[in-house]
């Protein structure tokens, strides 16, 4: 890869890191009432994005970041108060900054109008100068805001040190220069070196250097850190004044520098530098003309003592010694948490490791099985060693999975923007409260969380919260609260999106469902059942089509995408108090606790999370509906009984129900149902191997795994297995099935 490309990738990674913390830092800034550390953190992040953007010529990003940074600088310097309003504007500015970064990533253009409007808002924050502030500072900042100033950030007009291009300067023709250079002690205190400067100067062309050592005191009076020498350089080369000044760029103010034309009218066109104005009178520096013969210039040009011989009493002659105002060079007590020791590892390597550990788990299981098939006693050394190996393998697996685990904060952080945008689009006031951001879940799950949560959040703001007027009527504060929380619960992660709105209007939901033919008008449904209608395909209670929560997608789609991850979505609502959507997901998509079953002579794995119970069907509990559908009575209710062997196509005739085992599962789409299998082999954790990645998608199958005996077992996709049974049912059968299910 082009090395610069890799730096660019780093830049965007860093941008993402900054953007991820910026919002929290902005809020912290407001909460801490303008604490300097908090403002500094925000400033640094924006500053850093700007700096990097400049390096890659991302001009739109640079100009926007610059204006943002300027406003922050005003805050930092106390010229702009950290008010709620100002922070609100900056939060929105942060959104636009994120847009710019995204646009820059893809090489697209960000929304220029939105950026311009925000820049105007930010400029308006700046005290006094109004819109002027940005432009002026941009100039100071070395021209890093080309859009505003109309010039390119990288100035290339600085003459090459060699001075080859100076011929183009008419003033340089035939011009010799006489440069006098008298360093102050301060020049040496900043580790500049007269020798190097002279060397650079003489590189400009043929030159004649003479030393004036007349100011050098006697040895007994010499201050090792003083400055006593000066030089006159006659440059025979033609070069510009700028060429010469650039050599002395770093020591401007720390030396007396004069430039004169040696030819022409002899008037000294160059004049003395700014430094001359600051030159203290010679006697202040203790200059005393003493003649000393000096053999080599080099030996004495750098009086900064590098040996231990520096006398303790020797104060640097002109160094600004008492720097009392400056902070001591020790670390400030870290307000930000100390950087924990981390390393960056390529994700591919982690994935590879996880894969390998998966193999190890399978291998260990195979070994255990083989040993158990031999005649080795349970308390033998081999068996006990194997037990330890199993324990160890499990621990390694957990540890490796932990490497890929990430806090949900990454997803939650993006949500305040979603809430903000949704609130402004619906004219509602929303405060998003997040809890449990530190809850960790596998990266592969994290990546797929964003969409459903975004949707649930939009739904909560759009449909859940009442309008400010309505809230006022019922005595609630105008600002609605949406609570986004995450926690671990029995090996899964549970994420709640709870609003404090009016709750689900069950009457309206029910009527709407009847209208759409989802339920019959005379059906008696519990509150829970009505609530769940919201997540049925084709349902929407919105009076008018809203593109806020929906974007053309219903809650049913959200539910399905969550189910694809092995998750569940549930809903609870209380009239007048609010609605909570709860989403529960496995912590990882790499391993699964499963029940190993056999059906049609094959071994299959049913995900444990969806299993409610297993039972042996009794003859009188089984009812046949139509030619090939069956329901099972479970504690008074009837659920569809699906023969797994038939669903998978391994047999055409279902197993007589009484000869098999019914696994009662909780299906998201179809409610409770029972899977009929031939028998149960056991329960174990299996490593998930994607079928799609290795073969292709197969109906009724979620994935595959390798069992202890080396056989490949398919993992049942509960939803589609049950669905396959219901699909193609005649209307009469469907009605009967529905009625049977209650």
């Amino acid at each position, binding site marked *: 890869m082009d090395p610069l490309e890799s730096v660019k990738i780093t830049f965007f990674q860093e941008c993402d890191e900054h953007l991820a913390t910026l919002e929290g830092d902005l809020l912290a800034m407001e909460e801490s009432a303008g604490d300097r550390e908090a403002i500094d953190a925000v400033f640094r992040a924006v500053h850093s994005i700007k*700096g990097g953007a400049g390096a890659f010529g991302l001009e739109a990003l640079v100009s926007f970041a610059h204006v943002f940074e300027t406003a922050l600088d005003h805050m930092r310097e106390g010229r702009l108060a950290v008010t709620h309003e100002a922070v609100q504007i900056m939060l929105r500015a942060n959104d636009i900054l994120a847009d710019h970064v995204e646009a820059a990533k893809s090489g697209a253009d960000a929304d220029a109008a939105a950026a311009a409007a925000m820049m105007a808002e930010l400029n308006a924050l700046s005290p006094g100068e109004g819109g002027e502030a940005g432009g002026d500072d941009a100039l100071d900042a070395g021209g890093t805001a080309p859009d505003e100033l109309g010039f390119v950030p990288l100035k290339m007009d600085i003459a090459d040190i060699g001075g080859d291009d100076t011929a183009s300067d008419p003033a340089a023709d035939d011009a010799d220069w006489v440069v006098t250079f008298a360093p102050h002690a301060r020049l040496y205190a900043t580790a500049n070196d007269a020798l190097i400067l002279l060397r650079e100067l003489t590189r400009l062309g043929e030159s004649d250097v003479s030393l004036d050592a007349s100011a050098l005191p006697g040895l007994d009076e010499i201050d090792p850190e003083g400055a006593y020498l000066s030089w006159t350089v006659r440059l025979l080369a033609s070069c510009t004044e700028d060429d010469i000044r650039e050599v002395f760029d770093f020591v401007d103010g720390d030396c007396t520098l004069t430039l004169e034309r040696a030819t022409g009218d002899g008037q000294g066109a160059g004049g003395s530098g700014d430094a001359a104005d600051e030159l203290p009178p010679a006697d202040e520096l203790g200059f005393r003309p003493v003649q000393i013969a000096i053999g080599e210039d080099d030996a004495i040009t750098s009086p900064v003592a590098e040996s231990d011989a520096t006398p303790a009493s020797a104060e640097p002659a002109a160094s600004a010694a008492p720097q009392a105002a400056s902070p001591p*060079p020790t670390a400030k007590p870290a307000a930000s948490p100390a950087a924990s020791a981390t390393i960056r590892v390529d994700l591919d390597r982690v994935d590879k490791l996880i894969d390998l550990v998966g193999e190890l788990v399978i291998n260990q299981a195979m070994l255990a099985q083989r040993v158990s098939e031999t005649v080795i006693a349970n308390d033998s050394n081999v068996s006990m060693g194997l037990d330890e190996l199993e324990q160890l393998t499990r621990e390694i697996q957990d540890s490796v999975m932990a490497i890929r685990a990430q806090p949900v904060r990454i997803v939650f952080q993006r949500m305040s923007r979603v809430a903000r945008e949704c609130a402004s689009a619906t004219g509602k006031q929303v405060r998003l409260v997040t809890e449990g951001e530190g809850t960790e879940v596998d990266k592969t799950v994290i990546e797929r969380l964003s969409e459903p949560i975004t949707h649930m959040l939009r739904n909560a703001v759009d449909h859940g919260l009442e309008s400010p007027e309505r809230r006022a009527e019922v005595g609630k504060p105008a600002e609605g609260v949406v609570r986004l929380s995450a926690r671990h619960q029995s090996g899964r992660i549970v994420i709640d999106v709870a609003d404090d709105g009016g709750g689900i209007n069950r009457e309206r939901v029910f009527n709407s469902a009847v209208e759409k033919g989802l339920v019959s008008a005379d059906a008696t449904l519990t509150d829970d059942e009505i609530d769940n209608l919201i997540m049925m395909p084709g349902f929407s209670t919105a009076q008018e089509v809203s593109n806020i929560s929906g974007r053309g997608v219903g809650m049913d789609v959200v539910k399905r995408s969550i189910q694809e991850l092995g998750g569940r979505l549930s809903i609870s609502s209380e009239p007048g108090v609010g609605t909570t959507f709860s989403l529960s997901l496995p912590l990882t998509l790499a391993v699964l606790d499963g029940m190993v079953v056999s059906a049609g002579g094959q071994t299959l794995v049913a995900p444990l999370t969806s299993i409610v119970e297993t039972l042996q069907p009794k003859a009188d509990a089984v009812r046949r509906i139509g030619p090939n559908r069956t329901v099972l009575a479970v504690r008074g209710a009837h659920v569809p009984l699906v023969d797994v062997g038939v669903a998978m196509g391994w047999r055409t005739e279902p197993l007589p129900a009484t000869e098999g085992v019914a696994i009662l599962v909780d299906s998201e789409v179809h409610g409770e149902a029972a899977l009929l299998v031939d028998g149960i082999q056991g329960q174990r954790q299996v490593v998930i191997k994607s079928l799609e990645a290795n073969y292709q998608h197969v109906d009724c199958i979620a994935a595959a795994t390798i069992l202890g005996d080396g056989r490949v077992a398919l993992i049942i996709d509960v939803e589609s297995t049950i669905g396959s049974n219901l699909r193609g049912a005649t209307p009469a059968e469907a009605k009967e099935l529905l009625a049977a299910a209650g």
Partner: protein
Amino acid sequence: MSLSILTVDDSRMMREMLLLALSEQGFVVTQAEDGVEGLEKLNSASFDVIITDINMPRLDGFGFIEGVRADEKHRATPILVLSTEGDVEKKTRAKTAGATGWIVKPFNAEKLVSAIRRVSA
């Protein structure tokens, strides 16, 4: 000649960029993420040139430069400030702290190398 250079910058991207530009010249680069880490590196090693950013967490460039200069063995080490800010007040502050030179970001490699040549023997 292969110079040893310490770069102090909180931006990983900037550190990588410097590494790229400097190692091309055959310079040996040591990196630090902020002033505190920079001073730590200087505890155990000396460098021909130090390049530092100004805006950094924990210890900023000004504090870092003062810290370097406070150590007798690094008093003669040239320190170049590499910052997006180029205003006179900041430059003066850096100089007062003991900075040798100043380069405004975004830098180009030639300019950077020429600046290094201008401060290193």
